[in-house]
């Protein structure tokens, strides 16, 4: 159920591995995946990511992670891995019917 992302371990023929790029658009928001870059090392990966993905102030912070270090669940949406979330309707507030007298909760 947990497996390596298989096609994301590539290097180009100069031996530059692939890095995944995550960008924080502004303070208060989480880093979001933006794409990937090739780079020989972490410093160059950050520079390449800046040049490729933030030419118009799209970010205030960048993370780069070697793609081979990403661990992914299986992509299948019907995967039993996500089953535990499916049958617990009582986790959602809409499960509870409030008496009319309660205007807001």
């Amino acid at each position: 159920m947990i497996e390596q992302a298989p096609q994301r371990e590539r290097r180009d023929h100069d031996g530059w591995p692939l890095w995944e790029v995550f960008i924080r658009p502004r303070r208060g928001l989480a880093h979001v995946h933006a794409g990937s870059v090739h780079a020989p090392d972490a410093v160059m990966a950050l520079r390449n990511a800046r040049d490729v993905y933030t030419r118009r102030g799209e970010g205030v912070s960048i993370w780069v992670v070697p793609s081979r270090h990403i661990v992914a669940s299986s992509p299948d949406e019907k995967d039993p891995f996500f089953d535990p979330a499916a049958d617990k309707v009582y986790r959602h507030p809409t499960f509870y019917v409030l008496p009319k007298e309660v205007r807001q909760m």
Partner: protein
Amino acid sequence: MSETDAALLARFEATIAADERIEPRDWMPDAYRATLIRQIAQHAHSEIIGMQPEANWITRAPSLLRKAILLAKVQDEAGHGLYLYAAAETLGVDRAELFELLHTRKQKYSSIFNYPTLTWADVGAIGWLVDGAAITNQVPLCRCSYGPYARAMIRICKEESFHQRQGFDILYRLSHGTPAQHEMAQDAVNRWWWPTLMMFGPPDDQSPHTAQSMAWGIKRFTNDELRQKFIDMIVPQAEVLGLTLPDPQLRWNPERGHYDHGPIDWSEFYRVINGGGPCNEQRLRHRIEAYTEGAWVREAAAAYAAKHAGTAAA
């Protein structure tokens, strides 16, 4: 087809039918994968080769501001190429493989970039017409069924509108300048008009892959539909520019609610795409030279990284 394959195919088709996106690690038919790799790679190559005609004018831009703008525009095109190579790589090909296919002419790039940029007005005509056509093509691709391609297109489309406007701005200034400047702008538009219309590809009755691409949600409109959209958008803009388009048959058709246009010379399109354009040799040679001559930089960076491996953050 085994039972599991049939189930996988049914799942794939249901995802497409629901207008949801296919993601890299989903099962997909081999032909869908191959079509996407070919299309995305060709698109990436076009962005990279497309830097050349405009870069030709960076050193000769008429002012420092125009030079800075053109540099930024060409840098964007490099970025577009990189987003697209990254999207292609999610399908299991290597960027280096795609470079190899470009350099050995096994994959193509858009035939528009095989025309020369003879004057400064050509930079304006490329921005207005060529980037304008690219936008018309690319906006529907933002809803393409393959997630990484659609996401790259969203990013690209955000950047393209600056490209078209800077081109329009160049032509507007020239058109409203001296008679010689006006003539230069008109000449550029005359030369770029027909090749730009060819960017949308052959007419629908000669485009055998369109139906399949539309069924897969890769394409949303046919070549002719996109071409018509583009013409309908451009004609009123040409009037504002004070320039004419070199087609005596171009006129509004109130019954169709579209502009009619004259016949396109498809023999020219096929000649240029098969290597017979004015700059095919030059473009590819320049690309290969740049790549080969840059090899020592890539090797040095890799050697540096290897030397510092273990001490660096990675």
